[in-house]
Structure formats: C-alpha cells, structure tokens
C-alpha cells in the first residue's frame, strides 16, 4: 500500500525554466510534508517542508504547494539550474513523526 506516490519517475527541463515535481498521498492523517533531494550514493538532504495548516511555503527558488482536498503537493523550482539535477523525494508524516517517502522523481536540468 503506497501511501505517498510520485507518478512521474523522471522529468527533463531546460535550464532557467520552471521544474514542477508532483506528489500525491492517500492518508488523510498526514499533517506535515517534506521534500528531499538525493544524489547517487548519498543520503537525502532536506529541502523544504509545509504544514497541513498552510497551502504554500517558499524558500528562495523552491516553493511547495499543498492542496489538502486533492491530497496533492508539488515542488516548484524556479529558475532551474543544472545543479538541481538529482532525485527528488516527497515525504509525509503523521503521528510520532514517522516519515513515509514516495518513490522519487529523477530531475534532469539541461544546460
């Protein structure tokens, strides 16, 4: 039972354009959502998060949007840079802060 889903395994974007990464979840008990970035053979690094009481959180080039009614969140990267190329994971948390991750989206930013 995949509670957090990233339906796009990969995404290719031109440098300078917007990257939009999507994530859907099924558990209505999730109250905190996070995005992580991962390079090969390394641990994921935390990017940005959003609480369920908000619908938008912005940090520099990164913005996360949350649509609770649709159980959907997205990560926008603007402008995209070649160094953003990595696997992006969304994650969700309910009670006890146990994080459930999606399957990841490989972002390739073309120079």
């Amino acid at each position, binding site marked *: 039972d995949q509670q957090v889903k990233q339906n796009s395994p990969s995404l290719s974007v031109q440098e300078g354009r917007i990257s939009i990464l999507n994530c859907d979840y099924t558990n209505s008990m999730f109250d905190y959502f996070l995005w992580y970035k991962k390079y090969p*053979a390394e*641990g*994921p690094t*935390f990017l940005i998060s959003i609480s369920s009481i908000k619908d938008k959180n912005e940090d520099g080039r990164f913005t996360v949007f949350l649509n609770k009614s649709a159980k959907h969140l997205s990560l926008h990267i603007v402008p995209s840079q070649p160094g953003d190329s990595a696997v992006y*994971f969304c994650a969700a*948390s309910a009670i006890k802060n146990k*994080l459930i*991750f999606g399957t990841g989206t490989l972002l390739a930013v073309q120079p």
Partner: protein
Amino acid sequence: SQTIHQWPATLVQPVGSPLSLECTVEGTSNPNLYWYRQAAGRGLQLLFYSVGIGQISSEVPQNLSASRPQDRQFILSSKKLLLSDSGFYLCAWSVSAEAFFGQGTRLTVV
C-alpha cells in the same frame, strides 16, 4: 551541531552470512531513529523506527532486525543474508518532523 555517522560505506557479503550496520548520532538527545532501504530503481522504504532505547517498530516483514542499545546508537542486523537484501541502506534521525540522513551503506549480497 548534530551529526550522524553510518558505516561501512560499502559492503559485499556472501549469501547466508550475518550483517551488522551501525549508526550513531551526536549532538542531540532522545532522537527518533530510522533505517530505510533504497532498492535499485525504487523509493525509500522504511524498515525500522525507534522512539527510544529498546523501542523498535518494524514496518515490513523481512530478514532483518534492528536494535537500539543506547540512546544515540541504532544497529541493523541479519543472521543470514539473502540476495534480496542487497540495496542502499540509510540511517536517519529526527527530533521534529524533519529527518536527517547519514551517507548510506551500499550492501551487495553475492
């Protein structure tokens, strides 16, 4: 500042051999500790979760076990490895919602 140490970085083990991966956290007290596995081409699967010494939650039935003998030490073990245990194992800690990961261990069972 908080740091997390996970070792070894890579490991090649024969089928049927035992496994012990260790993770330690510095600079924080009573963290939540996690073991995740990333199989080839797949996402991060939560294997074990601990909220305190001796308190382990297993998320999926499998050939692995976990122990937390000290507040900031988390150990992943197996008595007999299977080929399907190959993957990238990640330890993580948290005190709030954000989790912070170690560098991972690439385990290859041959």
